[in-house]
C-alpha cells in the first residue's frame, strides 16, 4: 500500500510541477505585483490548461501524501518522495528543453544525497 501511494505521489508531483513550469513560462514573467494585477494574473492563469492540469495533479499528490503520512513515518515518506528531484531535473532537460549545465546536475545530485541523509 505504501509503495502504491509513493508511486502515485512521485508521478503526480513530477507531472504537476512540469506542467506548472510549462504553463507559467507560456504566461511569461510576472512583473506587476499590485493586488489588482495579481487578481488579473490569477484570472488569466485559471484559464491556462497547463496550470489547471498542474493544480489537479498537485491535489492528487497532496491527498496521497496525507494518506501516506498516516501509515508511514515522516522519515520514510520524505526520502522516498525525493525521487521527484531526479525525475524533474531530467524532465526539465528533455520535456521543457532547459539547458541543464553540469553545475546544475552536480548541485541537484548533492541536494538529492542531502535530502536522503536528512530524512533517513
Amino acid at each position, binding site marked *: 500500500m505504501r509503495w502504491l501511494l509513493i508511486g502515485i505521489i512521485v508521478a503526480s508531483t513530477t507531472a504537476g510541477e512540469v506542467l506548472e513550469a510549462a504553463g*507559467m513560462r507560456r504566461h*511569461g514573467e510576472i512583473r506587476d505585483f499590485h493586488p489588482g494585477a495579481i487578481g488579473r494574473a490569477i484570472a488569466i492563469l485559471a484559464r491556462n490548461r497547463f*496550470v489547471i492540469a498542474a493544480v489537479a495533479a498537485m491535489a492528487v499528490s497532496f*491527498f496521497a501524501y496525507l494518506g501516506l503520512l498516516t501509515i508511514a513515518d515522516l522519515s520514510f515518506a520524505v526520502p522516498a518522495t525525493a525521487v521527484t528531484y531526479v525525475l524533474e531535473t531530467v524532465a526539465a532537460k528533455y520535456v521543457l528543453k*532547459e539547458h541543464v549545465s553540469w553545475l*546544475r546536475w552536480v*548541485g541537484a545530485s548533492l*541536494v538529492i544525497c*542531502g535530502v536522503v541523509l536528512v530524512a533517513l
Partner: protein
Amino acid sequence: MTHERERLRLKTWIFAVVVVFSNVFANFFLKRGMPPSLATPLEYITVLFHPWVSLGVLLMIVWMLSRMALLSWADLSYVVPVTAVGYVFVALVGKVLLNEQITMKRWAGIALIVAGVALVGGGSAPQTRPEPSP
C-alpha cells in the same frame, strides 16, 4: 543587459525566500495541527478546519502562488534545487520549536543540501531559455 540580469537575479532571490519560508511554516503548522491518525475519508476534509491545519493550508496557498510567479521566469531545474534549502530550515524549526534531535547524519545531509543550493543558485543564471514571443 547586465542590469537586466541583476534585476532578475534579485527578484529571483526575493521570491525564493518567500517560497522557502511559506513552505517551512506551512509544514510546521500542518505538523502541529495533524491528529495522530485519519480514519475515514470524511476526516481528511474536517481536519482542514482545525485552526493550525487551516493556517498551514493558507501558507501552502501562499507557497503555491509565489512558486508559480517564480516559475513564470525561472527554470524548473533552477527552482527545484534552490528551494530544497527548505529541508534545512524544516530541520532547524524541528530542533528549535519542536525539540527534535538532529543527528550527525542529518547535519551531514544539511551540509550537502547547502553545497548543492550554493552551486545551482550562485553558479548559474535563473533563466536559460528565452521568453517565448507573445
